């Protein structure tokens, strides 16, 4: 199995799964339950993915996931305060990096 046999396969799977809803979507649209999903699902999906990106944190060992918890709290607070995702994102990354360095050296 080499990379040039795999490339089309992986490309096909990733693209196919993104195109599928657009291909079958118009037929599904007549079901009203989809409108409900449209209103509430995006926010849920984002929360799932956020959790998924930090799934490897070990809460039982120091630093107990504290950098992530504090940084994400910072993101939420900044967002409520300034309503700018770019600023919140930068604040979050800065807090996270600083805390990581502090916990690593202590």
């Amino acid at each position, binding site marked *: *199995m080499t*990379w040039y*046999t*795999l*490339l089309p*396969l*992986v*490309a096909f*799977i*990733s*693209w196919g*799964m*993104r*195109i*599928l*809803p*657009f291909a079958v*979507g*118009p037929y*599904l*649209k007549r079901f009203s*339950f*989809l409108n*409900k*999903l*449209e*209103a*509430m*699902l*995006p*926010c*849920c*999906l*984002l*929360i*799932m*993915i*956020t*959790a*998924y*990106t*930090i799934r490897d944190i070990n809460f039982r060992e120091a630093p107990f996931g504290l950098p*992530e918890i504090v*940084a*994400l709290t910072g*993101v*939420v607070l*900044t*967002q*409520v305060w300034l*309503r700018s*995702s770019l600023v*919140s*994102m930068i*604040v*979050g*990354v800065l807090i*996270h*990096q600083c805390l*990581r360095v502090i916990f690593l050296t202590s």
Partner: protein
Amino acid sequence: MLFKEIGCSWYVALLYNLFVFAGAMQFVTLSVLASGGSALMLAITLIPIGIRNLFYGLTMLERYQKAPTILRGFLAFCLVDGVYSVLQIGPKFDDAKEDVRYITWLSVLSHASWVLAALLGSFADQLVPIPPKLEFTLTALFTAVATEMFLTQKQKRVLGIAFASLALAILIMPSQMLLAGILFSVSGCLMVPQKRELTA
């Protein structure tokens, strides 16, 4: 960088990034490739990872419908986590043409930066020390977008559904928590508004 570690040259990395615009899938492909799994096994592992893109498409149907078919194929290809979250909070133009133009630019730019980053990564990994854990940028972005969506929609039920499904997913199948979480939220979203309609 990672491609180099398993002994692929830079043009392989470039091709992969050009045709497969999917971070998680590429990591998995590499690990399956490195462990010598079969193509079938790879496909079975990849599909659950891609499933969330199905739901992205479903919630974006209307906005993407305005684009011509061929362009829509490309735009769907570019509808990744990052683009999706920016679209959710970014401007939404009333004029259909303008909206399509905006989505197209966003997609092209993010794909271009992706390919460029792969090129840089395969050449410059010895030159520049890359700070560790920078992938937290994405976590922060998703959190900011989720907060913003909650602030504009003001639906407290959404938080309940999301965290309940998250907890359930982690409890029941930690290894497939993303997939399980998505399925639980879908069913949660379907159940909750219906209940309210009945009582109203």
